[in-house]
């Protein structure tokens, strides 16, 4: 087996997806929803709808009782999911079921405690077996993440870490080194949630990250409108949209209506990503 073939087979779904986006000159769209809101069955339909509408990567939020990094929209979604009895084990079953139906890359997005209580090894083994591609833990930074990274990477799971506007250049390098699949750049200080405008400092921040890594960069927090996505063209390899989608689920009267609204929103945002890209100068 050639070296090339080996590296191809070892490449994660996430890396492959970003490679395809790069070669087609397209900006990607990462879609976040909270698993189990309002039920795991509904989440399955939502993920299929999001993937069908053009989402490139799906982040499945594992609900937690104390989501300190989240704004009110995702807090409410977590509460609904927990009231519906959602557990991490249930979310892993959902991943397994989804993997039989779609090849869309799936990232598990969680706070640390549920994963820790399952056990790092057991979680990694089950997530990998179910067909998850990557993991992002909101409250674990590379500084505290050595054991966690080891457990995930030994099962072929990408570890995605967050970079923030407060991160020093030294920390950005640390974060880039610890990340695989992509790097998630938080657009502003604050919790998750839609905002009217993106931070003025964002272009400079994105350039600082670009200087320390070749990994794809996804930018999230505060992105809800096509206009936001257009602004990111040229700065990011993907835009992450979360609270705006969760809000669609909250607003919709039924699961089918929510699935439809999610698909419509993703089409709109993905459209902005692609259109913005085509307007760019070649090699800009």
């Amino acid at each position, binding site marked *: 087996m050639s070296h090339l073939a080996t590296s191809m087979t070892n490449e994660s779904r996430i890396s492959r997806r970003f490679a395809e986006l790069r070669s087609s000159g397209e900006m990607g769209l990462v879609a976040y929803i909270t698993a189990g809101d309002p039920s795991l069955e509904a989440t399955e339909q939502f993920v299929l709808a999001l993937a069908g509408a053009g989402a490139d990567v799906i982040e499945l939020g594992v609900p*937690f*009782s*104390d*989501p*300190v*990094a989240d*704004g009110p929209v995702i*807090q409410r979604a977590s*509460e609904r999911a*927990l009231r519906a009895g959602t*557990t*991490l*084990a249930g979310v892993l079953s959902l991943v397994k079921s989804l993997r039989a139906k779609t090849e869309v890359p799936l990232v598990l997005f969680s*706070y*640390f*405690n*549920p*994963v*820790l*209580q*399952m056990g790092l090894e057991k979680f990694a083994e089950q997530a990998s077996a179910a067909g998850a591609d990557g993991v992002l833990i*909101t*409250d*674990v*930074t590379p*500084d*505290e993440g050595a054991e966690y990274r080891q457990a995930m990477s030994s099962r072929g799971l990408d570890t995605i*870490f*967050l*970079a*923030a*506007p*407060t*991160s*020093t250049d030294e*920390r950005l390098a640390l*974060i880039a080194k610890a990340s695989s699949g992509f790097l998630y750049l*938080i657009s502003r*200080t*604050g*919790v998750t949630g839609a905002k009217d405008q993106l931070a003025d400092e964002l272009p400079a921040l994105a350039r600082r990250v670009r200087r320390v890594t070749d990994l794809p960069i996804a930018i999230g927090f505060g992105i809800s409108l096509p206009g936001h996505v257009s602004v990111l063209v040229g700065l990011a390899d993907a835009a992450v949209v979360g609270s705006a989608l969760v809000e669609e689920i909250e607003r919709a009267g039924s699961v089918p209506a929510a699935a439809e609204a999610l698909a419509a929103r993703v089409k709109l945002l993905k459209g902005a990503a692609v259109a913005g890209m085509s307007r760019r100068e070649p090699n800009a």
Partner: protein
Amino acid sequence: MTTAPQIWPDAKGRFGPYGGRYVPETLVAPLEELEHAYAEARKDPRFQKELDFLLKNFAGRPTPLQFASRLTEHLGSARIYIKREDLLHTGAHKINNCLGQGLLAVRMGKKRIIAETGAGQHGVATATVAARLGLECVVYMGAEDMERQRLNVFRMRLLGAEVVSVNSGTRTLKDAINEAMRDWVTNVRTTHYLLGSVLGAHPYPMMVRDFHRVIGLEAREQILNVEGRLPDLLVACVGGGSNAIGLFHAFLGHAGVKLLGVEAGGRGHALGEHAARMAAAAGYSGARPGVLQGTYSYVLQTPDGQIAATHSVSAGLDYPAIGPEHAWLADRHRATYTAVSDDAAVAAARTLARLEGIIPALESAHALAELIERAPKMPRDSVVILNLSGRGDKDMEILARYI
């Protein structure tokens, strides 16, 4: 006998396996900034001088160590001494830490202070220090706690602080901390988070302990003066555990001094009915090591890692995790932990009021209730120190139901 204590935490903020820094990336740089600023301040004699001046002239230190003669006689027990932190300005030990962190905030150039509060004592102390130092102050408080401790809400507002009601989750201290963390993550460049217990990410458990260490340092000197020897037992209530660690720390190297922390046993042993994290031996269920709000320690939680609801008659003990240094002291059997019920705490408050003329905070009454059980079983010439961490004025509406 004196043994040299190992200095905890280590460079990564670990007390053995406990502690650490589990926060979103946005907070790492500010925590590092705080850690460095504190390390500098600690070495700066001018900072220590200014803090000592305020502790003495504004807060009222040193606090007395009072021999509780009537309680001792009534119980026919070991000699009971009470460390009177309730006599401090604002009515509880909390002001020690608030002055320290307040001065640190000024030193760091932060103009805005945020805090969480459970019983309201930390909120009042923070609002007081913010007023004294001319800083803007916002206090997050669970809606349920605002109801049961509304006198403290009035005090904070009178002192010029904004009190924000938190309606998420269990509407108590844990949720107030979540909301304060969300504020901090948003306004981190201008704001200092004045965390009120030995909880949260490094350097908070270490720094808050250091600012309360004065309690034990004074008590050690005072007891040596009156008894000519070290005490046999120290007793303190433990929510996050700041008053307890403040009293215990100066005695850690004295192996003969036993340390006892008393948690909230609430109204039963089942998960959700209590706030006892370290008292599994006494039948309280649901605590395992886990990560909550920045630190790894014992946490009351469900089997799949969701943080459990807690109950205590005292808002200041009504919290699902214990400070990481306490978890480490328990693992090493250097300190022991137990829990007493709501009813026992209320009864103890009444006993102290009638025998010693002191109305204790319901938090401190938990420690007292355990002491009332234990002291009579000890030799009569042994010596016990109880940390009376706060006064009970704030609890009058709850106590009134039991009179």
